[in-house]
């Protein structure tokens, strides 16, 4: 049964191909069935494989399923194969199951849209690529999946391409991640050159054997690969694309920019953690960068008025937390937070989508209010999601994963832990700012209702969010270690013991944040802030702390200038000289052939005289 794991990415791919070819000709209902169905079957298959695995884990805890030989060159060979081990199992489950529910939600959210089947074609292609990415046992295959998700993200962000700014947002996301991908490609190529293969196991063994910790080469390769991961995961300094990518449909944001694609960077580091352990300097850098990202994201989230942008910045921050964990070597904790974040962030996005659906796709939180009675299901979903995001103690899974993570960070670096606590506080403030503004206060008018296809995903995700956390609990709440045990064979065990006051601060910070948000809500501060014209500080934060402006000056303008200078293609001009010379010569010579008698006679005589001279004097 594990041997059929190739069907898990293959089924959505097949669905995508069918929709791509026949999309225009089949009905919308059929398109939704093909799209959601292919991912659904893949999800069932994934669950079945996982159950079989956990029931009887195979020897060595990892199975490689070869699919075919790709290339065999002197000095390099690549085989396409799928690696099934606890890490990839977790991610496979996350992607396929959450993906299925998002497909289901989309079938109602996107009903009536132009290009309905095109949407599903792209979405299933994305799921297929992401599954390929996490199941790959070879860095080259992973890169294929990496690029695939990048392309699908571009296609889906720019789904409503008739509006120019959507296309620009899509381009921005694609270009920024592309630049990061080039760095990643450099890292991959370095590994390929050094080891002659990109098979992950071989490469990692080779790296440990060949390179000493702290050396130049592991650091160089690690940095290159890391840059690729930073780009995909929207971390500082490559985070500018994520808020603009909210121009895509909300389910897309839920799937791509919350649950899956942006976690690819985390997955990359976890998968190659052996290599990163050889470069401790890089790990420290990861930690610092993550801390910066957490703060930038939290501050920016405080002043956004578009609900999706609030969620985008929160995604940025939460992945910053995962990278924080990675920076201190807490791989398992990061994975746990990854899975838990996927659940509650998808829940948040889908809930906000449900809200917008009934408000004619309005997304400004200050245009909403008092919706908790009118949209109870959406309210419940969003509240559960917010509770998890803010890591309210005990109730939501977010608490457990963040606890686990911050505990591990404390054990390694107190400063980073401090930043994490500040971030947790700010997270509580900004997400509950959104909650109070949207769902409390004066009510606004709503229209329509939702069907079962919206309610079921929200319900399932809500229950999962509440329950998932109990897989890994700190000592004083039961000490369950299901999750870390599952991952232990790959990532090493890890339970850090923290002093009680550390855990206490960790629990108090989000509660304090919520309290502040509530107080300011009662005060009407948020409404006033929203209604007033943004001041300098707000504009700065809203614009993502000036990163866009800096990049525009540093990169975009010089690039456009170079393009302008080269617009006449100077290299071609050089060849144009040859062309013009030939044409000019031709024209000159043609003027000679005009029938002018004396000219002919003259040339004939000249030729004859020259010939005679040669003959006479040689």
């Amino acid at each position, binding site marked *: 049964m594990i041997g059929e794991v190739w069907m898990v990415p293959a089924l959505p791919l097949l669905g995508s191909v069918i929709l791509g070819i026949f999309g225009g000709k089949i009905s919308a209902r059929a398109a939704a069935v093909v799209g959601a169905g292919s991912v659904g079957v893949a999800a069932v298959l994934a669950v079945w494989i996982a159950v079989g695995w956990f029931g009887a884990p195979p020897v060595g805890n990892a199975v490689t399923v070869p699919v075919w030989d790709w290339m065999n060159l002197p000095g390099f060979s690549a085989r396409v194969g799928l690696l099934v081990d606890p890490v990839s199992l977790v991610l496979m489950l996350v992607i396929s199951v959450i993906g299925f529910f998002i497909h289901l939600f989309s079938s109602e959210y996107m009903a009536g849209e132009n290009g309905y089947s095109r949407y599903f074609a792209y979405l299933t292609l994305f799921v297929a690529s992401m599954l390929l990415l996490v199941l790959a046992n070879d860095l080259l295959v992973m890169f294929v999946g990496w690029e695939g998700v990048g392309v699908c993200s571009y296609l889906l962000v720019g789904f409503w391409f008739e509006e120019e700014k959507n296309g620009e947002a899509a381009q921005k996301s694609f270009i920024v991640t592309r630049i990061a991908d080039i760095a990643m490609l450099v890292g991959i190529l370095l590994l390929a050159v050094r080891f002659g293969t990109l098979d992950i196991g071989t490469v990692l063994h080779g790296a440990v054997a060949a390179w000493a910790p702290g050396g130049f080469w592991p650091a160089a390769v690690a940095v290159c690969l890391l840059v690729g991961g930073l780009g995909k995961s929207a971390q500082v300094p490559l985070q500018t694309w994520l808020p603009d990518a909210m121009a895509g449909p909300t389910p897309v944001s839920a799937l791509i920019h919350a649950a899956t694609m942006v976690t690819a960077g985390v997955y990359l580091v976890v998968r190659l953690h052996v290599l990163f352990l050889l470069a401790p300097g890089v790990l420290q850098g990861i930690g610092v960068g993550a801390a910066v990202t957490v703060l930038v994201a939290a501050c920016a989230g405080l002043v956004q008025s578009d609900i999706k942008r609030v969620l985008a910045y929160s995604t940025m921050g939460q992945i910053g937390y995962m990278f924080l964990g990675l920076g201190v070597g807490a791989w398992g904790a990061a994975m746990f937070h990854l899975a838990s974040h996927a659940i509650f962030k998808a829940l948040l996005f889908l809930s906000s989508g449900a809200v917008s659906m009934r408000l004619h796709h309005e997304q400004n939180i200050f245009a909403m209010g008092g919706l908790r009675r009118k949209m109870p299901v959406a309210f419940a979903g969003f509240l559960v999601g917010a509770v998890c995001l803010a890591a309210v103690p005990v109730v939501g899974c977010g608490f457990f994963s963040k606890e686990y993570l911050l505990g591990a960070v404390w054990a390694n670096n107190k400063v980073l832990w401090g930043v994490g606590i500040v971030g947790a506080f700010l997270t509580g403030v900004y997400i509950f700012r959104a909650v109070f503004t949207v769902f409390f206060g004066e009510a606004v008018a709503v229209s329509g209702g939702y069907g079962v296809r919206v309610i079921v995903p929200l319900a399932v995700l809500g229950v999962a969010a509440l329950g998932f956390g109990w897989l890994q609990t700190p000592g004083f709440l039961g000490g369950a270690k299901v999750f870390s045990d599952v991952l232990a064979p790959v990532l090493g065990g890890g339970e850090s013991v923290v002093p009680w006051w550390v855990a206490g601060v960790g629990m108090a910070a989000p509660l304090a944040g919520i309290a502040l948000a509530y107080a300011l809500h009662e005060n009407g501060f948020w409404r006033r802030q929203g209604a007033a014209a943004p001041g300098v500080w707000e504009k700065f934060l809203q614009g993502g702390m000036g990163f866009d402006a800096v990049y525009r000056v540093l990169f975009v303008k010089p690039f456009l200038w170079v393009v302008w200078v080269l617009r006449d293609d100077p290299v071609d001009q050089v060849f144009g000289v040859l062309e013009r010379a030939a044409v000019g010569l031709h024209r000159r010579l043609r003027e000679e052939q005009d029938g002018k008698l004396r000219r002919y006679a003259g040339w004939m*005589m000249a030729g004859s005289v020259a010939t005679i001279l040669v003959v006479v004097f040689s």
Partner: protein
Amino acid sequence: MSWQGAAGLALVLFCIGLAGLLARRNLVFVLMSVEMMLNAAGLLFIAAGMRWGTADGQIMFVMVLNLAGAELAVGLILLLRMRGRVRTLDGDAAVLLRDAS
């Protein structure tokens, strides 16, 4: 006179004819210069015949004469046809090969 002097005279006459051919625009004069050149060539043949003491030189001269006559006949007809076309005897006027470029 020596054959060399005759050859030299032939050369001079030939050169005069050549200069006339190149310089004159009126086609009548051009044809006349051609005749002059042919005449000079004939003189050269005669001189050579004298030098070697055979009759071949004069025979060749007869051939040259023959040629000159035939060529002149055709040339004059062409001259008249051209004059009918471009209304002038100017050699430089016959530039009808030029295309509109």
